[in-house]
């Protein structure tokens, strides 16, 4: 067990910091400090191209695909320095963190060649087509249908909560390719180009006034026969593999975002005098401890190479951060008080902390509600009987 970094790693940290700070002070000054997902998307794609050119885009990937085969420690360091330098998050985070690793694990060589460079360079933006209106937390009851017609897949159905679909180029879709199949069987995992007549995107306005999520409609949407990842009927396996990547090094980047939020709250507490309130002090201390424990939990799950046993840190990670962040939003509002309920301008638009309060209500829902997470933990982690499915 070792938590500190070696001299060579500290040297690597300096290298990362120097390059990133240089970029943010120079050519990409104009995007420094952006915290939203989509602001200045085009400029950010240029930035991601710059990352790719300098082999900083996906350092954990193999060298042949533009990565550096970086060690875990190096990936941790890069993620930390990336956030510390005020570099905005990746526009293509779904591509980089989910689609890319999925292709690396399950894609053919041709598929890798076709997609990976564009993903790394922020040119091929991905979104995720898993959830459906009748199956929010229940991937196994997917009803979107795919059938092979000649050398094309034809897809019909509807997805929902397709985050960022409106700025994406591609969507990966889990659909039912075997007529009459049920549950996790008979599903197929396809990569589909969004810009086609058969796909329609309708934004869903959220409670914070934004529209980051979408409904995505498929009416005879098409993709070539070789767009499937894995084999026909292996969609469930691929989807589960993909979801495991959600707990990869990207969690550290997410945590740096949380760090920024908590730092904002600490600053607000000092500014409003709430920092002198013992009740607020306890809650801030708890939030700080919770964030640190997420960091070390992530270190544990990333360090773990023994996949024969249940990894408790990984299994509990989603509910941990989602609950933490929802609490953080409430803490923020309790600190800023009624001022947090007033928008700065004339539009229904929220600054970071009130937005955190509103937006974080979705954290405990998407990607498996807290209730679903508890089922998984009890069933997979503790061997409790599975919740029986009904037949309604």
């Amino acid at each position, binding site marked *: 067990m070792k938590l500190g970094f070696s001299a060579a790693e500290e040297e690597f940290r300096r290298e990362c910091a120097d390059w990133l700070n240089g970029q943010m002070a120079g050519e990409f000054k104009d995007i420094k400090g952006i915290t939203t997902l989509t602001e200045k998307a085009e400029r950010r794609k240029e930035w991601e191209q710059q990352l790719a050119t300098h082999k900083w885009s996906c350092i954990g990937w193999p060298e042949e695909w533009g990565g550096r085969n970086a060690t875990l420690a190096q990936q941790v360091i890069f993620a930390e320095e990336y956030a510390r330098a005020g570099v905005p998050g990746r526009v293509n985070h779904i591509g980089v963190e989910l689609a890319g690793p999925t292709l690396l694990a399950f894609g053919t060589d041709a598929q890798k060649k076709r997609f990976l460079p564009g993903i790394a360079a922020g040119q091929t933006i991905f979104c995720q087509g898993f959830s459906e209106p009748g199956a929010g937390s229940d991937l196994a009851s997917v009803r979107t249908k795919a059938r092979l017609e000649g050398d094309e897949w034809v897809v019909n159905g509807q997805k929902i909560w397709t985050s960022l679909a409106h700025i994406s180029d591609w969507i990966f879709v889990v659909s039912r390719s075997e007529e009459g199949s049920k549950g996790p069987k008979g599903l197929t995992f396809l990569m589909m180009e969004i810009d086609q007549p058969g796909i329609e995107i309708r934004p869903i306005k959220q409670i914070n006034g934004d529209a980051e999520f979408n409904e995505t409609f498929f009416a005879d949407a098409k993709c070539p026969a070789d767009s499937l990842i894995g084999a026909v009927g292996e969609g469930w396996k691929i989807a589960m593999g993909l979801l495991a990547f959600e707990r990869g090094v990207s969690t550290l980047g997410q945590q740096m975002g949380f760090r920024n939020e908590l730092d904002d709250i600490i600053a607000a507490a000092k500014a409003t005098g709430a920092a002198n309130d013992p009740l607020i002090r306890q809650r801030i201390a708890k939030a700080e401890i919770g964030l640190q424990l997420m960091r070390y939990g992530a270190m544990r799950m990333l360090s773990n190479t023994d996949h024969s046993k249940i990894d408790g840190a990984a299994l509990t990670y989603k509910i941990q951060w989602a609950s933490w962040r929802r609490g953080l939003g409430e803490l923020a509002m309790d600190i800023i008080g009624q001022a947090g309920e007033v928008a700065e301008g004339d539009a229904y638009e929220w600054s970071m902390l009130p937005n955190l309060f509103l937006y974080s209500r979705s954290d405990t829902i998407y990607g498996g509600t807290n209730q679903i997470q508890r089922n998984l933990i009890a069933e997979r982690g503790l061997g409790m009987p599975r919740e029986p499915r009904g037949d*309604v």
Partner: protein
Amino acid sequence: MEFVFTEEQQMIGETAKGFFVENATSKRTRSAMASDGIDRDLWTGFCQELGLAGVTVPEIYGGAGLGQVEFALLAEAAGAQVAALPMVGLAMASQAILAGGTDAQKAAWLPKLVSGSVIAVCAGSADVTAQGDSLTGTFEFVPHGASAEVFVLGNDAGAWIVERSAPGVEVTAHVTMDQTRPLATVTLRNAHGDKLADGAAAMRAAREAGWICVAAEALGGAQEALDRTVAYAKERVQFGRAIGSFQAYKHRLADMMIEIEQARSAVYWAACAADEQSSDLPLALHAAKSFAADTYAKCAGDMIQLHGGIGFTWEHDAHLFFKRARAIQSMLGNGNWHREQVASMILGEAA
């Protein structure tokens, strides 16, 4: 000792409930949200057709001469539909004038307030100074402040009736998270105020009425959040089962009910204690405001969670409840402040 509603009270409650369910529809509320947060037709209907705005106001001023229990029933019913109405302004301003105004002030204003022809709000601030009847200072976060035609404004030294149209009165409307009750900043620069005879009594009465009003709204909102979630639980199917058949889901609903039943006791204890002016009124008020607000926040948050993704959309009404709940938590003293008042009664001031 009989902690049940009289037949008359039951009737008032049912009438109000029917009225708001029928009229304070999501569509109408959303239309009010897009303007100044007041559904004018609803307000007129409530004040004039229903004739209940003056439930606590004596009959000589156009009211019904009843009490806070009856008013709480109205606020509960309005809160259950997150109705976009200046209810808390009415409650506070009318009680302030009633408790602290001269006969002339009462006669001049109460009938207008009660008929809904004038929208009034009430606020206090320690930062306002008075030279004679000329007032200077700022009142922050005034609910429906931008829609009010008359203000009852107070500081530690007194309370005044200030007309919106008076010189020196400036009102800045704010885009507010809860769009059914937008906040405004009211700034006075040597503005004329009509001083109430007993400012302290006026502001005390206003606070009490305000606490009861928002606590009752919170109770109504929490119960409605539960009721709508219960309905959804019966109809929504996941994993081949009605989601209400999942025990963890059921227990969340049960937890909501446990809190709501306590909030109900708190609200009507406080309202009844106000009507009876019993010695435990301060305790009851702090209990009602803090407990009902927290209950509402919990239930509205649970409403979102238990609806899953749809509960997080603008289209669904859950966010109206959630934002109203948040607003109630933070207005008129937050929960910690109210509980600290209770602690002071029991333990004395902290050293």
